[in-house]
């Protein structure tokens, strides 16, 4: 069962083997898109100014020491890429860029319209000049429209695009709170990957390239889950709640504190008789069900009428066990319960260890570090092994010799 257990005698190379990608990316959306192509075999040539891509100037830093070769931000988004120095803003820069894209399959750019105009790069002209090239533009607001040159960031994207309105605390005197980890940029990267795939499939059919215009703003606007259908149909805005779904009206807390002062996520849904029976059985097994075993509780209306007592008992129940006990025992009882892992917990997670998820990567200084493994597992091919991000200009000589 499962793709990992199925190892055909021969696998094909990963699907992007032989594809050449030129990446001119100044933010994590474009860089992560390039990384997703590199993961499946594309040769991604990252163009950097002589003082390095902007992402090299962003921490955290390996060993806490800032420098162009120690940015963990750069390493995360740029592993498996090649680095070449090219000043696109200098005279002849665009011509040099075009000579590179002429021999490439995909060109990734994050420049907004005003920046493109400033360096004299017109993507429509490039598309006409190099019709088999896939131009993957990933920008804050897209290449057209009244906000096309508005400046953004991860926080701005999540705010204007909608996800932020659903995230924060029950207490609305506290502003909406940004979920961590560059998710506005990552959402744009997900759609950049999808856009690249559709363009590559289209090129297989027609031989033609494509100008692909991905908007981070719109990517966020279609990534707000229930908030959209709640507006499309009953025409109501959802209200944010602490670590659980924003809803038209308040619902009970789903975050429970454990004996070891950690948290588990568990949505108590009274209307599901199977989940109710599983919960009571689990609590009873630890002597914590109290009167919930009484037959009266088999009636949904009775459960709803005694909701606050039930919630209090469940709160106490989680307080007597560790978060991991609650997670594993609750899952064994058949309940969809999750422990709130911290990133450091993941490296010890028995499931991830058994799947061999984290991969060791050797860095340029000879040290090694664990990186997350492939985002997907295929029986037909493997992702390329994750290798370190390039040093600044590391592939200059080799590329000039091509």
């Amino acid at each position, binding site marked *: 069962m*499962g793709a*990992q257990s199925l190892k055909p005698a021969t696998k094909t190379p*990963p699907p992007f083997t*032989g*594809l050449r990608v030129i990446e001119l990316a100044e933010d994590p959306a474009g860089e992560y898109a390039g990384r997703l192509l590199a993961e499946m075999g594309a040769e991604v040539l990252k163009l950097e100014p002589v003082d390095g891509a902007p992402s090299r100037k962003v921490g*955290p830093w390996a*060993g806490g020491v800032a420098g162009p070769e120690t940015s*963990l931000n750069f390493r*995360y988004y740029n592993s498996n890429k090649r680095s070449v120095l090219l000043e696109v803003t200098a005279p002849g820069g665009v011509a040099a860029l075009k000579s590179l894209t002429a021999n490439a399959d995909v060109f990734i750019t994050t420049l907004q319209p005003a920046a493109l105009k400033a360096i004299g790069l017109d993507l429509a002209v490039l*598309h006409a000049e190099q019709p088999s090239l896939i131009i993957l533009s990933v920008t804050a607001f897209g290449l057209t429209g009244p906000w*096309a040159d508005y400046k953004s960031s991860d*926080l701005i994207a999540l*705010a204007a*695009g909608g*996800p*932020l309105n*659903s*995230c924060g605390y029950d207490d609305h005197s506290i*502003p909406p*709170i*940004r979920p961590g*980890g*560059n998710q506005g940029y*990552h959402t744009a990267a997900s*759609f950049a990957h999808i856009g690249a795939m*559709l363009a590559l*499939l289209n090129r*297989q059919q027609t*031989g033609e390239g*494509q100008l692909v215009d991905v908007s981070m703003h*719109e990517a966020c606007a*279609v990534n707000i*889950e*229930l908030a*959209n*259908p709640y507006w*499309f*149909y*009953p025409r109501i*805005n*959802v*209200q944010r709640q602490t*670590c659980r*779904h924003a809803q038209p009206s308040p*619902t009970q807390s789903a975050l429970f504190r454990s004996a070891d002062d950690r948290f588990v*996520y568990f949505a108590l849904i009274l209307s599901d008789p199977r989940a109710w029976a599983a919960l009571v059985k689990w609590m009873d097994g630890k002597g914590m069900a109290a009167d919930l075993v009484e037959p009266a509780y088999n009636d949904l209306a009775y459960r709803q009428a005694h909701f606050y007592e039930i919630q209090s008992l469940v709160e106490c129940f989680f307080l007597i066990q560790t978060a991991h006990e609650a997670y594993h025992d609750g*899952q064994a009882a058949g309940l969809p319960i999750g422990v709130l*892992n911290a*990133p450091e917990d*993941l490296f010890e997670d028995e*499931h991830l260890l*058994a*799947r061999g998820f984290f991969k060791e990567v050797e860095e340029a200084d000879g040290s090694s*570090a664990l*990186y997350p493994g492939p*985002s997907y*597992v*295929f*029986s*037909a091919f493997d992702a390329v092994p994750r290798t370190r991000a390039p040093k600044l200009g590391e592939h200059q000589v080799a590329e000039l010799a091509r």
Partner: protein
Amino acid sequence: MGRAREGITLLVTTAEATRSKPPEADSGAYPDPLRRPGPRRGPLSGVRIADFCWMGVGACATRLLGDFGATVIRIENRANLDMPRRLPIYKGEVRTYGDEDANPDPNKGGLFNNYNRNKLGVTLNMRDPRGRELADRLIASSSVLTENFAPGVMERWGLTYERVRELSPAVIYARMSGFGHTGPHAENKSYGPVVQAVSGLSHISGLPGEEPSGWGLSYMDNEAAFFNAAALMMAIYNRNLTGLGSEIDVSAVEAGINLLGPLLLDVSVNGRSTRGPEFPPGNRLEEPHAAPHGVYPCVGEDRWIAIAVFDEVEWRALVAAMGNPAWASEARFATLAARVANQDALDAKMAAWTADKDRFVLMHGLQAVGVRAGAVQTAEDLNETDPQIAERGVYFEMDHPVIGEARFEGTPIQFSSIPQENWRSAPLLAEDNAYVFKTLLGMGDEEFETLTAEGVL
């Protein structure tokens, strides 16, 4: 130059190549001729998907393929309706997610319509051997099989990858699950919030020293769907090149860990702990340094603006936009490092300045002078007043026989020549039974009537 450039022959299974003529004989099955399936256009035209997906993740993944030309045949169970068909997200009726309609009209649910446009819908009773036999025939006539059940369900129906390959030799079999199909927690039950918790995405979101605020949506249902859609397309692309199919195992938790970002390397390389009173940073950024960087109140109830200042040029523009207040020239705000060190005081000043202003006037005024600012927009704002979205048209409308005119969230990508073909709103329950079983699979009228009467279809 890529392999793709050299002569490609598109791999189309025999069943697809000999796809039946338009369903003239079944026109009676579609009271509205506009709902009758026709030939599809787009980069995935010619790909037929036997789609067992349900709920959010799976349906959202196959929606993307249906939008761009694949023939997606949703296989549903009348006895266990898809949750989005049951959830009471209705026009003109406000209910909260958990507030289930005891006797829902399966064709009225807005969430189902949202996730299942541009797909066909059939019903099959997999408890009946004849239902399973029909599923086999459907799979044999398709080149892609998708599912997001709990691990083991497809196996109980005999639908292992080995068996499915016998039915459709170059099949792509996409398994979408919370934890992946191997490993000790493969059987764990999950949905978006559980995936967000286990992958670490919830823990890293919130105010320092407070309980996590995490996520107010199933972000990982959507993101896992995007990963799954991309994985399906990569496998199809590879099959077009090599003729070989694939099984795909996507673990939503592993996708979520990949989305943690560079913080994960701070932990693995530097041994940094993310527990303690300093983390998470709320709306502030640890890296790169930025200040002010926050969400500030505006005029109106629960109205906010996000402002992010990364360097001195942006700071000077902000100060000018604020009218050069005296406090802004104090030494404690003079440099980025000083502003970062004094963010509590800075945020209080910012909030006092924004509080009596309209969030949109402020946003446009700040953007006009090069300051990164964005109103916190609701779904209503995005749909009704956002001029950027209105001009680019990411939302669109289609009619639905029961719901009426409905709005849909489109694809946030504009292509120079690839069409998104929005040919139909979501299928009514069993709407395409006659077309799929009679026209595509060649079932006779009598058998179709019998199987329908006996509850197999």
